[in-house]
């Protein structure tokens, strides 16, 4: 059984159908990609999968447990973590604190008004380790608003990782990044691959095909093709829709 499954998801906003009968499944330990042109419904799909919007129809299950329509908080607590396309960090906080906040031990003590954050060395050590994993150790005390674009992307991922996710959703991690930043990000995601179950929306086909085990193509709110990167390269649909060709970043 797949770790995370979505069956027959539909979502409409007013009379605009954004997702129509989408079914996806993500296996434990794999890296799955979701691609498609702008406005195809990728981000909405992510938002429905991670609880930002409830679907109108359909079911989402995590390890067999129905999580359809649960709040983002509940879904997060069950081990679904996500990064955001539009970066969404705690700007005034340092790199360490951004990560620290997401560590489950810290969160669980969230309502304890008499405990000291500075004294919670277990959570701090955990956060330090994650910061190191994403290569931000030398910027640990920098406020996240002062980081470079690529570093903020890495921090986005670190925050998602800190939640000790069973499945990690990355929303367009390369967006707005130059070639160099993209290479660095590729390396980072490669180190995470296999250790985490990852689902990634990505515009950049080249980037995605180098990483993904399986890719689903979404267009007009539907899954129009699915397969390994090799299978998709020869898929007539994908070729015709000129997805992610050179220059289409």
């Amino acid at each position, binding site marked *: 059984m797949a770790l995370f499954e979505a069956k027959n998801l539909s979502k409409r906003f007013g009379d605009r159908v954004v997702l129509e009968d989408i079914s996806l499944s993500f296996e434990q330990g794999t890296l799955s990609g979701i691609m498609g042109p702008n406005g195809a419904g990728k981000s909405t799909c992510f938002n429905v999968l991670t609880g930002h919007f409830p679907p109108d129809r359909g079911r989402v299950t995590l390890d067999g447990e129905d999580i359809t329509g649960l*709040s*983002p*908080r509940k879904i997060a607590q069950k081990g679904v973590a996500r990064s955001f396309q539009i970066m969404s960090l705690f700007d005034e*906080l340092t790199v360490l604190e951004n990560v620290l*906040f997401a560590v489950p031990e810290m969160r669980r003590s969230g309502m304890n008004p008499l405990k000291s954050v500075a004294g919670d060395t277990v959570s701090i050590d955990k956060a330090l380790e994650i910061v190191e994993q994403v290569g931000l150790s030398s910027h640990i005390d920098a406020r996240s608003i002062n980081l470079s674009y690529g570093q903020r992307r890495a921090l986005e991922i670190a925050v998602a990782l800190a939640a000790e996710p069973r499945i990690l959703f990355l929303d367009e991690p390369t967006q707005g990044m130059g070639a160099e930043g993209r290479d660095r990000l590729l390396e980072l995601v490669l180190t995470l691959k296999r250790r985490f179950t990852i689902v990634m929306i990505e515009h950049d086909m080249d980037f995605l095909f180098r990483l993904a085990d399986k890719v689903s193509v979404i267009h007009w709110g539907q899954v129009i093709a699915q397969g390994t990167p090799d299978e998709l390269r020869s898929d007539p649909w994908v070729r015709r829709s000129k997805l992610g060709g050179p220059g289409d970043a």
Partner: protein
Amino acid sequence: MSLYTPLIAHGPGAKARGQAWITKPMLVTLALLASFPLWAEHVGLYQYLGIEVAIWMVYALGYNLLLGYTGLPAFGQGAFFGVGAYAYGLCYQHVTQNPLVCLPCSVLAASAAAALVGCLVAHRRGIYFALLTIACGQVFWFLAMKVTSVTGGEDGMLNLHRPPLLKDNITLFYFVVAVLAVTLVLLWRLVHSPFGKALQAIRMNETRARFVGYDVWLTKWAVVTLSGAFAGLSGGLMAASQESAYPDVMSVHSSGFIVMAVLIGGGTVSFWGPVWGALVFIVARDLLGALTETWLLWYGLLFMGVVLFQPEGIAGAYQHYKNKLAGRAKAAAPAIAPEAENGSV
């Protein structure tokens, strides 16, 4: 510059920041306050003024949990202040005249009222939050005016005599300062706890806080309730010191005073902002009020000046000044001076 004290991972002693229960600025503040009765009359002030200043400090510190720390612009805080005052009066009239029983009643009643309001406002932020709190505040004010059999209507409750032990203004002042000391320690502790950090995380990015797994609604509800509890405590203290409780403190403009006081003090950038703000507000009220009946006009102009030219208030100006000094010191001796920015102030 911000209210937030970062947790610094490296550097000597840095980890311990925020772990202390009692800090140097706390001791200095309390010592200065405690000396007030000795010099008040020599500079033309009077003993009772100190009581009001200290009460407003408690009120403002509690309010800043909402405004400064969580970024929630509450404009109906006076309701909880008033509920606290009336609860004190009701307890005094019907149960016991002992303030050590009446004050907890104030806290409980105001917390309950705030918890109720919290249920209505906790899912909102920004302008909607502000409007809802005004509306809720008005409901309480209206009740206080109309339910005359309980509150005494426009006249309020009179003759809530102080107990013999606190009859004297100076003794009562020290009692209030003791309450303030406890408030300072508790709130200092609170804002450096995971709960306090969660409040600030919500201010910075509510959506992310939710996706990281925090219960945003519950946290906001809790802070509305808690802040209401401190408003109730100060309302109770005010009823005790003025020996009366009246509805005016619950009106919209009274609720606005606490916002203005906290902003002028610099509550958005410093834990100590509300303390400065309460001091300036009450002293300005008395000094300006002695000169002219239209003191609010002048205070209003002062407020506009602060918002225009020094939006981070007194505490913000102080921090700028300190950072400038630190910058100069660093330029003079770059290798020696450790970073001192955003310390305990």
